[in-house]
């Protein structure tokens, strides 16, 4: 599996570290909303198809990236930096199940 890092270009997956589900919304640190915390900590979409993920190019430029990966085929349909300042152009998969924008 190759992931195209926005800075380094296509690299082998062994250079990358999975940093978790990219759909999570962290509640405010002082939030008392237990449902929101429960969603953040435990609830996952677990889709069979496109999935928003956070990866880090830990064996290269160390940038954190948003990746849309198909969990059935490992096809990677979008990669962009997490940090908005370095975002070249937002790529959103439209209307795909399990890939909440």
């Amino acid at each position: 599996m190759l992931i195209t890092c926005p800075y380094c270009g296509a690299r082998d997956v062994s250079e990358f570290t999975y940093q978790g589900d990219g759909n999570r919304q962290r509640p405010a640190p002082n939030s008392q909303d237990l449902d929101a915390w429960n969603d953040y900590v435990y609830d996952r979409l677990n889709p069979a198809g496109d999935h928003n993920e956070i990866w880090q190019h830990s064996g290269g430029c160390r940038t954190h990236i948003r990746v849309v990966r198909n969990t059935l085929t490992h096809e990677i349909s979008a990669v962009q930096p997490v940090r908005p300042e370095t975002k070249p152009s937002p790529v959103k998969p439209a209307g795909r199940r399990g890939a909440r924008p």
Partner: protein
Amino acid sequence: MASRIGVERLSPLEPVYRSGSHGRFEDGVEVALSEIRPGSIVQVTAWPGEEQSAAAAIRAVTGLNMPDGPGGGVVASDQHAFGIAPGKFIVTVESEGLVAALVNAIPPAMGAVTDLSHGRTIIRIEGPKAEWVLAKFFAIDFALPAFPLGAGRSTSHHDIFAQIQRTGADRFDICVFRSFARSFWKALCHASAEVGYEVQ
């Protein structure tokens, strides 16, 4: 910085650094390995939005004009600079004291300057088979069109991080953590044995 204690720099390769020809060199050596010991190895990290200002500060201090874009770098006679990550650059020069000059040119609001002179070891591989030997270590394209002169690449060999700059048509400088340098050097010697290598 003024109160820094002067610690002598020692090469981590010393116990295994054996000058001369090694491996299968009956028909000549096809790569040369050496440790280059620049006086200063400095990393500059620009805060988001300050990348251009930091590159301009590096240019003002060293005269090195890095091209824009990922991994862009430049090689002058005894000083090198290249990008290793978004907003991050490695600058090496022959003389000591580069870090003080860069700290003056790059205020804390623009970015951070880190002196890596003792923390990194730079290994040079040069020769017609340099690309061949490096291709055994790293899953990146070393061909000249894909990896142009002066450009830098951040990658890793297993868990040894390497920042590689092409400093010549068949010459690469590999910047590794000092503590991993001896192990990496030994691996590089093993990988070079089949083509015959000379340690300079």
